[in-house]
């Protein structure tokens, strides 16, 4: 196995494109190294992107943020303004693993690992985040929900790397929240995840996005759930409609972490709770 640590995104993409065997991008490595250790992956090339300056920074303000692909969770948590404007995105990023894992894990890694249960993906989808994708020859910007196509697979081509995640302009009176259910208090993979992002005006929800994790092969953007609360003051009836829409959108599996029935039920519960938190963060009062 070769190990390369290029200084530019272009160089990284070129290395990936030129590799004839199996090539993987190494950011935090918190998923990749586990799979290598288990013998599930035997890469011929690892491209470490942590030497690429552009990927190591968080830049922006209320007009929009750019989070580099190699920024670890702990730095996202420490950023002064990001957490004020996007608390849901930040709390999702902070939920990945322990403090030890936070020192390494990245939101782009979380996305490209393409697990249905990734914590940041529903939060990013709810936020309307976009991924800046750099290939050997061209760049493109894609909605986060278009990246993952199924468990373990993405729409990226062999030479493409996500350089950064862009969060959109933040309107005033906006709030987001992410909640997940795990059996313990820490260290588990989400059994269900729910993210809500909304903007209110005089207490009325003007726009909303609701996303769910771990209840389908990919994270889901649930338009029906958002529609259930848009135009409302998040009264109990609209919350119940949101919960029902969340549960209805679920297409989960039975596995060691939860049952179909359990995930479906709890998706509604968490959707409701996340909406309540997001609404309060946006200045709404129930």
């Amino acid at each position: 196995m070769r190990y390369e640590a290029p200084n530019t995104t272009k160089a990284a993409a070129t290395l990936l494109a030129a590799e004839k065997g199996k090539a993987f991008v190494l950011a935090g490595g918190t998923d990749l190294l586990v799979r290598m250790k288990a013998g599930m992956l035997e890469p011929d090339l690892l491209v470490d992107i942590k030497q690429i300056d552009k990927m190591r920074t968080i830049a922006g303000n209320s007009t929009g943020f750019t989070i580099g692909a190699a920024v670890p969770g702990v730095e996202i948590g420490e950023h002064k303004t990001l957490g004020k404007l996007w608390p849901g995105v930040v709390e999702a990023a902070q939920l990945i693993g322990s403090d030890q894992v936070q020192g390494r894990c990245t939101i782009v890694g979380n996305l490209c690992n393409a697990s249905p249960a990734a914590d940041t993906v529903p939060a990013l989808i709810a936020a309307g985040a976009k991924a800046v994708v750099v290939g050997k020859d061209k760049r493109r910007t894609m909605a986060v929900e278009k990246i993952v196509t199924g468990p373990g697979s993405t729409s990226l081509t062999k030479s493409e790397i996500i350089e950064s995640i862009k969060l959109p302009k933040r309107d005033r009176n906006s709030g987001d929240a992410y909640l997940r259910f795990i059996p313990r208090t820490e260290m588990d993979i989400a059994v269900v995840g729910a993210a809500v992002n909304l903007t209110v005006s005089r207490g009325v929800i003007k726009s909303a996005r609701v996303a769910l994790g771990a209840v389908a092969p990919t994270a889901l953007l649930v338009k029906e759930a958002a529609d259930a609360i848009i135009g409302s003051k998040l009264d109990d009836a609209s919350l119940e409609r949101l919960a029902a829409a969340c549960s209805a959108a679920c297409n989960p599996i039975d596995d060691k972490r939860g049952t179909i029935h359990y995930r479906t039920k709890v998706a509604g519960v968490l959707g409701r709770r996340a909406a309540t938190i997001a609404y309060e963060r946006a200045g709404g009062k129930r």
Partner: protein
Amino acid sequence: MSGAHVSTTINGDAVQFACPNDESLLDALRNRVGLTGVKEGCGTGDCGACSITLDGRLVCSCLVLGVEADGKEIGTVEGLADGDKLHPLQENFIKHAALQCGICTPGFLVAAKVLLERNPDPTEQEIRYALAGNLCRCTGYDKIVRAVQATAKDLRKKSKKKSR
């Protein structure tokens, strides 16, 4: 497997080692550098027994490649004491019986040190969540949390004295 020559700083000392590209930093520290205080409990980042600091950040050394350590500063349990003077955490772990079998102890000490540097006055809940990445199967965590609380108190007293 092609390998790498790694120049790094471990507990303040310049250290060089060579390792295959796919070898974890944990294995390199244990088998090539001889720092067996870093323990492997799982190899998958779930137990924290291999906790070290990498450029000051707390990480699981099983989830870092040895080659990634090139040019980095590493801190392990072996670097906690200042010569023959134990770190207050080490002192309090002994005093408060915060260890039984001791296999998790190095990881807890490193993680707790990072916590107290960041947050000198943590609540019980903050301690518990900060140490959630370190598994202990012997103690039920009770005496570990108490030892960290006692250390935080000791260190705050010390820094107060200094600032006077």
